[in-house]
C-alpha cells in the first residue's frame, strides 16, 4: 500500500479545510489537503450568501472573480406578507455578497497550494489509523487506490458529514431539533429584486427554519428552504419549497436549472472540537450560525485558528488534546456567545405560530434599526416581546 508522510493531513477542501491547510503550510508544516470530490466547490451545497466584514479578519481579499452579486439590503417577510426591508443606508452584517462558491472554494484552495500545501483530489478518508491507541494518520481511497497518509495531526474539515471526528472518538451526533434539512433550486428568469436577500419566515412557509431568495443577477436566484428535521417526515423541504414557488407570482415564468440538497447543523457548536492529534473545523465541528445557517465565515475562522495553533504545537512537537486547547479557546472567545444566543433565538422562533411572526415582523418594521443583523433584531424583540428572549436576555 502506498504511504504518504506529512506533518498535517487536512480532510476536505471546503473553505475550512483550505484555510487550515494554508495556515499550516505557511507555518512551515508539510501539509496534505485531500478532497473526496472530483471538483473543489462543486456540486454546490450552499445558498452562497455571506456578510462582508469577516473577510478581512481572515485575510481574504474580496475578488470580483468569485463575487456574483453585491447586496444592498435584506427583506424579512412574514406569512401574511408583512415586510421588513432595509435599504442601502441600513444594510448590515447579515447581508453582503452572493458568491460563486465553486470559484470561491477554488480560490482558497489555490491560496493553500501557493502556501505549499499538497492537494490530492478524489481522495476520500475512510478511517483513521491508530497505533497503541494514538492517532497516527488516515486511511484513504485515492482515485480508487487504497492509501495511507501518516501525519502528526489530522484536521477534520469534512463538513456536515463529520465522520472523521467520529472515527477519532469525538461525538458529533446532533439532536433532531439541531438539524435543518434543506433543498434549493437555482431559478432563472425570476422577477426578483436583484439587490436584496430575502428571508421568508413562518410555520406555514418553512417549519422551524426559513425560506431564502438570494439573487445572483440576471433574474437568477438561489431559492431554497431549511426545515427543522424534527418537523420532517415526508420530504417536507421539497413540498414547502415547491408550494412557495408555485404560488409566488415572481416565479410565474421562472424555471429551475439546478437542484441541490443538504443539511445544516443548528446547535451552538461541539462541546469540544479537539482531541489528541485531531482538530475539527467549520461544519464538521458544528460551528455554524444556528439561526441563519451561515457557516462560511465560521469555517474560514476556525480553519485559520487551527493552522495557527498547529504551527505553534509543531514547535514543541506536541499535538495532544491539551496542546491543541488554545484552538478551543480561540473559537470560543470569538464566537461562542453569539452562537449560543442565536441557538436560543432559533429554538424560540421555531415555537412561534404564523400570527405571532406576523406581529413580530410588523413590529420590527416600525423600529429604527440602523444595521440589519440578528443582534439588532433581537434587541427590538427583547424590548417589545420579552417572552421570546426569556432565558438568554443577558446575551442581548
Amino acid at each position, binding site marked *: 500500500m502506498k504511504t504518504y508522510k506529512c506533518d498535517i493531513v487536512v480532510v476536505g477542501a471546503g473553505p475550512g479545510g483550505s484555510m487550515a491547510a494554508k495556515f499550516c503550510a505557511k507555518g512551515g508544516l508539510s501539509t496534505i489537503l485531500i478532497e473526496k470530490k472530483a471538483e473543489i466547490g462543486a*456540486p454546490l*451545497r450552499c445558498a452562497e450568501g455571506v456578510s462582508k466584514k469577516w473577510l478581512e479578519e481572515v485575510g481574504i481579499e474580496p475578488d470580483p472573480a468569485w463575487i456574483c452579486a453585491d447586496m444592498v439590503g435584506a427583506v424579512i417577510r412574514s406569512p401574511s406578507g408583512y415586510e421588513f426591508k432595509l435599504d442601502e443606508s441600513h444594510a448590515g452584517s447579515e447581508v453582503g455578497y452572493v458568491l460563486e462558491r465553486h470559484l470561491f472554494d477554488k480560490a482558497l484552495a489555490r491560496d493553500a497550494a501557493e502556501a505549499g500545501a499538497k492537494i490530492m483530489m478524489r481522495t*476520500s478518508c*475512510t478511517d483513521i489509523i491508530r497505533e497503541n491507541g494514538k492517532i497516527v494518520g488516515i486511511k484513504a481511497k485515492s482515485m480508487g487506490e487504497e492509501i495511507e497518509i501518516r501525519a502528526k495531526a489530522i484536521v477534520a474539515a469534512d*463538513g*456536515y*458529514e*463529520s*465522520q472523521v471526528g*467520529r*472515527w477519532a472518538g469525538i461525538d*458529533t*451526533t*446532533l439532536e*433532531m431539533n439541531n*438539524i435543518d*434539512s*434543506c*433543498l434549493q433550486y437555482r431559478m432563472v428568469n425570476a422577477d426578483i429584486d436583484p439587490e436584496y436577500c430575502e428571508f421568508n419566515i413562518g410555520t406555514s412557509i418553512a417549519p422551524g427554519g426559513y425560506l431564502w431568495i438570494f439573487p445572483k443577477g440576471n433574474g437568477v436566484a438561489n431559492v431554497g428552504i431549511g*426545515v427543522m*428535521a424534527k418537523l*420532517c*417526515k*415526508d*420530504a*417536507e*423541504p*421539497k413540498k414547502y419549497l415547491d408550494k412557495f414557488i408555485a404560488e409566488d407570482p415572481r416565479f410565474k415564468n421562472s424555471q429551475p436549472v439546478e*437542484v*441541490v*440538497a*443538504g*443539511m445544516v*447543523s443548528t446547535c451552538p457548536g461541539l462541546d469540544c472540537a479537539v482531541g489528541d492529534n485531531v482538530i475539527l473545523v467549520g461544519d464538521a465541528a458544528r460551528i455554524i450560525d444556528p439561526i441563519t445557517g451561515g457557516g462560511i465565515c465560521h469555517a474560514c475562522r476556525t480553519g485559520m485558528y487551527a493552522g495557527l495553533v498547529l504551527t505553534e504545537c509543531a514547535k514543541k512537537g506536541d499535538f495532544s488534546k491539551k496542546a491543541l486547547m488554545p484552538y478551543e479557546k480561540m473559537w470560543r472567545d470569538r464566537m461562542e456567545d453569539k452562537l449560543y444566543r442565536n441557538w436560543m433565538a432559533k429554538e424560540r422562533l421555531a415555537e412561534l405560530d404564523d400570527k405571532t411572526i406576523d406581529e413580530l415582523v410588523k413590529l420590527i418594521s416600525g423600529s429604527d434599526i440602523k444595521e440589519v443583523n440578528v443582534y439588532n433584531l433581537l434587541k427590538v424583540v427583547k424590548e417589545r416581546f420579552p417572552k421570546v428572549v426569556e432565558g438568554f436576555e443577558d446575551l442581548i
Partner: protein
Amino acid sequence: MKVDVDKCLHCGGCVGSCPVNAIFLNDFVLEFSSKCTKCGRCVKICPVHALSMEGRR
C-alpha cells in the same frame, strides 16, 4: 435501507445525521454498514424522501 437512486441528490445529509455513523457517501452511492440500527432517522429527514425501510414504503 433502500435508496431510491432516481431521487437521491447525494447531499450527504443522512451521513452527517446518522446517530451511529453507519452511512458512507461514495461519490454517488450511499453505503449502509452493518452498524445501521434501522432507527429511521434518515428516512424521516431526507429532503427529497429518497430513503425508505427495506420492504416498507
